[in-house]
C-alpha cells in the first residue's frame, strides 16, 4: 500500500474558473498531444486519478466520457481506458482546439456587441493582413 504520489496526479485548481472536469479534459488532452501519454497507453483508473488529484470520482468519469467522445481516449468495457490509437487523433484534437477558440472568439465578440457582419468583417481584415495594420491607424 503506497501513500506516495502516483504519477496519476493531475494538477487541478479549485479556484480556477474552468470547471474541474474541463481542467481534467484539457490536461489529459495536452498530455496526449505532447506525447506524455502515448497512443494505446492505459490511462489511470478513474478512482486512482480521482484519489491522486483530489476530485470526486464523478468528475473524472465525466472527463473520461468527454475525452471518449472527443476521440482522445477509448474505453473498453471491463478493461479500462486507453489513449486512442487513431492516426487522425492529432488532427481531431486540433479540430477540437479550433472549435474551442472559435466559440471563445464568438463569445468575446458577443460581449463587445459586434454584429455577425462586423465579426465577418474583422475576420476578413485579419486574414488579409498582419496585425500591425489596423483600420484605426490611418497612416499610409
Amino acid at each position, binding site marked *: 500500500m503506497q*501513500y506516495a504520489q502516483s504519477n496519476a496526479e493531475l494538477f487541478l485548481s479549485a479556484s480556477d474558473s474552468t470547471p474541474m472536469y474541463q481542467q481534467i479534459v484539457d490536461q489529459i488532452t495536452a498530455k496526449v498531444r505532447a506525447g506524455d501519454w502515448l497512443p494505446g497507453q492505459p490511462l489511470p483508473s478513474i478512482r486512482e486519478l*480521482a*484519489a*491522486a488529484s483530489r476530485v*470526486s*470520482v*464523478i468528475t473524472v468519469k465525466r472527463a473520461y466520457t468527454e475525452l471518449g467522445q472527443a476521440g482522445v481516449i477509448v474505453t473498453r468495457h471491463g478493461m479500462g481506458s486507453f489513449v486512442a490509437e487513431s492516426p487522425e487523433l492529432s488532427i481531431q484534437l486540433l479540430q477540437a482546439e479550433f472549435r474551442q477558440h472559435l466559440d471563445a472568439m464568438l463569445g468575446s465578440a458577443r460581449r463587445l456587441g459586434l454584429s455577425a457582419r462586423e465579426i465577418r468583417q474583422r475576420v476578413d481584415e485579419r486574414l488579409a493582413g498582419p496585425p500591425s495594420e489596423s483600420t484605426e491607424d490611418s497612416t499610409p
Partner: protein
Amino acid sequence: MSTAFSLAGVTRRYENFALQNIDLSMPEGQVMGLVGVNGAGKTTLLRILSGLALADSGTVEVLGRAMPAEQVAVKQELGFATEDMRLFKTRTLRWHMDFVRAIYPDWDEAYAAHLLRRFNLRAEQKLAGFSHGQRVKALLLLNFARRPRLLLLDEPTTGLDPVARDEVLEALADVLRDEARSVVFSSHNTRDIEQMADTISFLHDGRLLASRDKEDFLDDWRRLVCQGAWTPEPADWPEVAAVRRNGSIVELKLRRFSEELLQRLRGQGLEIRSAEPMSLEEIFVTTVRAGGAA
C-alpha cells in the same frame, strides 16, 4: 451494487426543530456532501445514520443492515466524527489509538503512523493539550486508520487552518481509491463539497430540498448578466432563482439553465452579456435566500 445507506420516510422531532420525511440513499463507493445552514438538520441526519439518535418514524438501513437493531455490526464498519465530539482529556493520543486498535481488527498501524506524520500530531501528548485543529485531526486519524466502509463526518474541515484542511482532504481522497468505501460529510466549506462529492444533498429547515449528481446540479445553475429593460417575474419564470437590477443591467441567477431558456429570455428583449457557471457557495446562498426552493 450495494447501498451504503438508505433512509425512507425518516422523521425526528425535537423541541424546536424537526427532520421531516427524509427519503435519501446512496450506493456504495460514493461521496455525498451535505449542504445546509446551521440547524438545517445535517448533524441530526448523521446522528440517525450512526445510531446516536433514533428516528421517530421511517426506516433506516446502513451498510445493508437495519438500524438501530443491528447497530453493533454496523458500527464495526462505520467511522463517525462530529465537531463536538471529544476524546478523554487525561489520556494521550497513543492511549486512544491503542483503545481503538483493541476494538477494531482492521486497524492499520502503519497507516496510522503515516497519518500521525502527515497530520503533525504527537502521540504521547495528552488530549487536554490539543488545539481545536489538532483535536479534529486526532479524531479523524482514529477513524481513517481503521479504514471503515462508511465514514460519516460532520464538518471535518471546519475551523482548520488551510494546511490542516489540505491534509484532511488528502486523507479523504485516499478513501476514493477503494470502490467499496463511502463517505458522507457535511461542510460549510462548500468548496470541499464541490471538489470531493459525487452527490450533493441539500437540507433546509429539516427537509431534503434536493439530492443530485454534483456535475448535473452545477450544470443546471448559471449566472447571467444581461442588458435590457424587461425583468422576469419569478412567479412566471420558475427557472429564475434570483434577480438583481441596476439601471439597464440585470443579473439573473438561473436554477435550470438551458439554451431554450436563453432564447426565451432573448425573446423578451434581454441581451445576454455573459453566462457563467456558479460556485456551490453562490448556489447555496441563492437557494436559501430564495426561500428554500432548489
